[in-house]
């Protein structure tokens, strides 16, 4: 029976990160962009926990809590901005956010 090695966790982490990244780059809906951003952070969390476990060092796990806190704060700020943006433009699609382009 195959055991689960850190490599597997790393593959899972990078897949999560890649899916999140594609979501950020491709999605038009800002709400989904924010969610994809969370997915990227979670990918990183997985990698950190895996490192922590294989290295018998709690630093990685500790870092995950920080990331979750920061992510919560970031999402709340992001959602607040989104609400404000929706109130002004009646839209949550990214095409409206191009006033600074040339």
């Amino acid at each position, binding site marked *: 029976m195959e055991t689960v090695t850190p490599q597997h966790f790393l593959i899972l982490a990078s897949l999560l990160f890649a899916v999140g*990244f594609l979501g950020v*780059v491709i999605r038009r809906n800002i709400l989904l962009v924010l969610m994809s951003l969370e997915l990227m952070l979670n990918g990183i969390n997985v990698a950190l926990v895996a490192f922590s476990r294989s290295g018998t060092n709690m630093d990685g796990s500790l870092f995950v809590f920080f990331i979750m806190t920061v992510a919560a704060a970031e999402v709340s700020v992001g959602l607040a901005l989104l609400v404000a943006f929706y109130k002004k433009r009646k839209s949550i699609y*990214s095409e409206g956010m191009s*006033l*600074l*382009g*040339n």
Partner: protein
Amino acid sequence: METVALSVLLLPFLSALVTLLFLRKQGNIASLLSVATAGGILALSLFLIFAGHGETFSWSVTWIKLSGWELEFGFLIDAPARLLLFVVSFVGFLIHIFSLGYMADDDAKARYFGGLSIFMFSMLGITLADNLIMIFVFWELVGFSSYLLIAHYFSTEEAAKASRKAFIVNRIGDFGFLIGIVLTYWIFGTVSLEELGAEANFRPHLVTTFLCLALACGFIGKSAQFPLHVWLPDAMAGPTPVSALIHAATMVAAGIYLLLRIEFLFTPEALALLALLGAAMGLYAGFCALVQRDIKKILAYSTLSQLGYMAAAFGLGMPGIALFHLMTHAFFKALMFLGSGSVIHACHHEQDIFKYGGLRKRMPITAYTFLIGVLAISGVCFLSGYFSKDAILLGAYNLNLPVFIVLYAGAILTALYMFRLYFITFEGESRSKYAKQAKENSPLMTGPLIVLAILSVIGGYHALFPVEIVGALIEDIRRVAQMDNHLWMIILGTLAWVGGALVARKLYGKVKQDDPLASKAPGFFALCRSKLFFDEIYGLYVKRIQDPFARFLEVMELLFISGLMVRGSAGVAGLFALFAKAFYVGKIHAYALWFILGTLGFLAYAVGFIGG
């Protein structure tokens, strides 16, 4: 005493400032202020002249201090300065009064009298200055005020052009003067007149011909001597009192005064050259004056000729005599210019002498005072011009015969063209409507004429003047008085003016509308009219050489400075901007993509994939 000197200098400046700031629309108040200022200047100047009891007064303070170099602001009131101070303040005051009458109907009186005050300020500055740089500053200021006043009738093409011409031609001379000043500082390490005098005495080997000729460029430009004489006749486009004050009595004479101030820097070769140039100018301007129709241009050429006499006197080593002639010339030439102003004013600004005639009966005071001026300049015995001019001629006869011959020919011409002017203007029949209606002017205008006429008669008796004023002249006058051939010179001088007057009487006693010389000697007439083509030659030079050169420089400037350097560097920055702008698309996804790619790039660098 320095307080008085400072106030005499600042008084006209303040008057000009007040006129400029508050009185631009109140011409009458401005004119009274300016005349009162001139009176104040006269009073303070007389105090300055007599307070020192004939001793040299000098005073200076530091004006600008740079490391190791100090520029002083100071006064040097010695004998020549006292004389010029007297001439400037006295003649200036009379001309201010005359201006009250002459400019009574002018629309821009405030500008005119403000300009006169600026001129008095700058001229007094030249008179009192104790170093070359200060002289240069005021030198430029008189040039500026001369420009301002020539262009008084700036709506006429003639005046606008003349003022520009005067300014530019003066700039050429002043450039040489500036080079001279820099060289003087380079060689002697000082520009103070007193220190320069001591240095030049102490180390005569430092004095070079090139240096003094460079300084003399200032004189050549300002006194309108060959080859920069072309501006003065054109400058007659200004109001007549201005021509009297600036272009006859004081500013053009400042050139001679400058020579006197730096007399110790002149080498014998430079002096000989100046004598020759001056004598040639005396003759050349005489020929030009002989065929002019404009009353003021005749007087302008006559001024050129008399300035030539002064330069010749200086060149012959008789600076005192040059100054003497400067003084008497200031009297009789200001008299004649004001007389011509009186005539022009009475004849509705007609300036062609062939449109006058018979004015003696209608304007007796102007006519007789003018006649005194004519007699004085022609050198009739015992009038002021006789003493100063015959002193120059006698000195030339004994010191340098070729110069004497040229000057003597000039003296005959002087009598000829002056009597021509007198006969055509004041004798015979009136030849135009205005001349028939002419009336004598108000006492405001005839008063100064009478005072100047008296001075033109007695101005030559230097013993009549206080020694404080004429102290600078006495030594050279004594020297000339001890020379030989006095009787011979009296005979020659009398022959010159009697001959000139008789020829003028015969030729011009009864003229019609045309110059009789034009039909009797057409070739000679045309040659004199051409003024030896100086204006044409300069015009050609400007058109053929200077303008193409300027255009060449313009192309070079367009190509290299504005093209390659200014536009070029802007273009390089622009290219970078074009490249950077390509990233700035306005889509949030693109920014995120670039951000992540950038992060990956940093990561790759940190891990060591790229860049090592």
